[in-house]
């Protein structure tokens, strides 16, 4: 029998701007009974199949699942290609051309005739009688602005830029849309504070100075809840991880994190992405076998508390003394990048083996911030400034 005459050929292509994604994302081929025929990876695979209908499913860069049905016919080749689409948001965003945003802290300082203050944490004083989480300085800052100038500080009708970490350039691209560029050379967690509906919200940003792609992100403020943070298309692996986790596609996410976390830290110089991958591995019990690169992440990017917390998790049983030191160092403030990291830190503090009282004391110090923490947001988000009362 001539097999070629009775089978057809299915060509499956997966193209991504990331070789890592192309190599790590599994593509499932199933027959008409939905029985699994093959799982393939890589940019192109050719399969000889009996004629009939097949479904082919891939996870795309944005974390979404795409399933196609193809009719394989005898002696013919059918092709399927999974690729980023020109019409989608994967394309590099144009350099921000909108209006630069000003910080209310500058306006408040100017109104007092003092120099601009942009100290870490909040630059504001919580006035007597002010509600928890609000700032009289920001409220008075807005009130002091002549109506014609308020747009320069407004992100949308109810949201104002209050303050930010040093070296951030913020540009309003549209109603509720802010492009952020990180120009600072110091290593620290980037953050912004916004005044929204009368409430001060502190938000960590997934930015670092270590690569061009890692210096930019976009914030979108919707009707409610924490703003969405979008990463540039070039941060493909981190974007893909984030998209998969947020939509609950854990299988591919864990697979990708397993392959990519170490590379994100070393080769791609994206310690934020590496830390996110590490947090996902820890969440699903798979971090221990990556102890080596966790050590490297914590050592090479010591400023990143999320990495120190991951190290503490790995060392909790292996080297508790060193792990505790890392944990206590990382939790001097609640200012991690990811809420998963702060959550992990609290759990470790709560259950550290043989705690001599230092963990309990640290938990007590963090209690006011913990009470204002928004765990529904993937990024560290506090209602009211981290140091506020």
């Amino acid at each position, binding site marked *: 029998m001539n097999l070629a005459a009775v089978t057809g050929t299915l060509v499956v292509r997966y193209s991504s701007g990331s070789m890592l994604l192309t190599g790590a994302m599994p593509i499932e081929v199933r027959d008409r009974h939905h029985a699994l025929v093959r799982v393939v990876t890589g940019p192109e695979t050719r399969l000889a199949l009996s004629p009939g209908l097949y479904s082919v499913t891939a996870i795309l860069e944005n974390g979404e699942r795409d399933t196609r049905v193809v009719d394989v016919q005898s002696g013919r080749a059918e092709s399927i290609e999974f690729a980023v689409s020109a019409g989608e948001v994967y394309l590099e965003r144009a350099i921000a051309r909108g209006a630069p945003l000003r910080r209310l802290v500058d306006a408040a300082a100017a109104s007092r005739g003092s120099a601009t203050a942009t100290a870490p944490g909040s630059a504001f004083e919580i006035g007597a009688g002010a509600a928890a989480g609000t700032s009289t300085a920001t409220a008075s800052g807005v009130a002091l602005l002549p109506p014609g100038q308020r747009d320069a500080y407004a992100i949308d009708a109810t949201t104002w830029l209050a303050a930010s970490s040093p070296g951030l350039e913020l540009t309003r691209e549209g109603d509720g849309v802010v492009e952020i560029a990180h120009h600072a050379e110091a290593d620290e967690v980037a953050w912004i504070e916004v005044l929204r509906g009368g409430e001060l919200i502190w938000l960590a940003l997934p930015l670092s100075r270590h690569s061009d792609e890692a210096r930019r992100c976009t914030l979108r403020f919707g009707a*409610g*809840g924490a703003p969405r943070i979008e990463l540039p298309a070039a941060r493909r692996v981190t974007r893909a991880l984030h998209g998969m986790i947020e939509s609950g596609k854990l299988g591919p996410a864990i697979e990708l994190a397993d392959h990519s976390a170490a590379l994100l830290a070393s080769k791609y110089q994206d310690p934020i992405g590496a830390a996110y991958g590490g947090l996902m591995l820890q969440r699903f019990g798979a971090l221990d076998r990556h102890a080596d690169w966790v050590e490297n992440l914590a050592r090479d990017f010591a400023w990143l508390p999320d990495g120190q917390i991951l190290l503490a998790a790995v060392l909790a049983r292996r080297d508790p003394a060193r792990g505790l030191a890392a944990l206590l160092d990382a939790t001097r403030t609640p200012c991690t990048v990811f809420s998963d990291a702060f*959550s992990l830190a609290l759990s470790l503090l709560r259950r550290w083996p043989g705690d001599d009282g230092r963990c309990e004391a640290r938990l007590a110090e963090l*209690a006011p911030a913990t009470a204002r923490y928004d765990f529904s947001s993937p990024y560290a988000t506090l209602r009211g400034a981290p140091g506020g009362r």
Partner: protein
Amino acid sequence: MVDIVARVVPAERRAGAGRPATHALVIGVSAYRHLLGGPEESPTGRAWQLGQLSSAAGSATAVAAWLAAEYHNPAAPLGSLRVLVSPTANDRLDPRIAPEVAAPEHRATRDRVEAAFAAFMADCDRDVENVAIVYVAGHGVQLTKHEATVLLEDIAAPGVRPSLRGAIDLIQCHSGMDHAATAGTQFWFVDACRQPPEIAAAFAAMKGAYQIDELPGAARSSQCFLSASTLQQSFGRPGGHTLFCEALLRGLRGAAVCPPTPPLCDAWHVSSYSLSEALTRHVADQAGEAGEVQTVHHFTRGLSPQAVLHRLPGPPRVDLTVRLAPPDAAPVTTASVYFESGSPVPDVPVAWPLVMQLEAGLYSLALDTQQPYRRFSRPINLLPPGVELEARVAP
């Protein structure tokens, strides 16, 4: 006895003596004796500003009913089903379960939960091939993204110390059962109505919630799904089920069903991964429609991040709905459905919209029609929970 398995599951569907079994513990607390609106409001209960719920107990009985009637695991059939509920008059209890849990011994107080948990763990410890399923719904205190303490019926009892004696630290219990000498596969569902931050902060310093010992080693796979709503109003529909329970049952009955995927599972099944995706999507969508934020956090312990919760006895039958566009073409348009080329599926309805149930699979749909309309054909990927599509025959 709070184990109702012998009363609600026929013997032929229960685990045989000495064989691996699934052991389930289901708890739902809507009625809080000492909180606001309870029959014995205490000063502490009033201070906490926590009131009665209306869907936690009903949701627990719905989950228990699914376990009794639909859960399928040939390697570990249901061996025990312990149910403790504290319902209010607004709870809609499943009619199959309600008569079995009416006695006071089924109330979800600290002492009864502690006793039931101990018996549940003893059953789980009999065989590492056992499966453990835990579902708990009620007022919750979420201290971190991945921690939850659920309050029991007798929380805030006057004069009782420590303050959290009437509560269970579920995530600690999840951690405590992650060891090598107990049920190797575990599924934990924590359906908690989360408190406002200022109240949660007060709870952070309290002690006394039920916890268990932590032993060395790890289970094969222990999954935890934690859903904490932002506000009580979105926790559940009064007299109905919680959003999380709705999503869970919807997932188990179709939305999370996936085809055989060796080596994980050779049968149609619900896995931890597919359940996570279905729960994440449905809970977020339903809460969003109510203008609230509710998220599902899924995390694991044990050696493997993936496990199978439920296996279907065979391929599922799936609803197919085809609407015709434009509707005017209905009198002159007929549909054929093919599973294998040349062999149409019999008994395709002639009425529009076409509604039929088929075994999950890949099909071809072909519409024959008359001028001025055009023939239509396309493949159909028929998977649970169902497929609805529009067939356009417009010229």
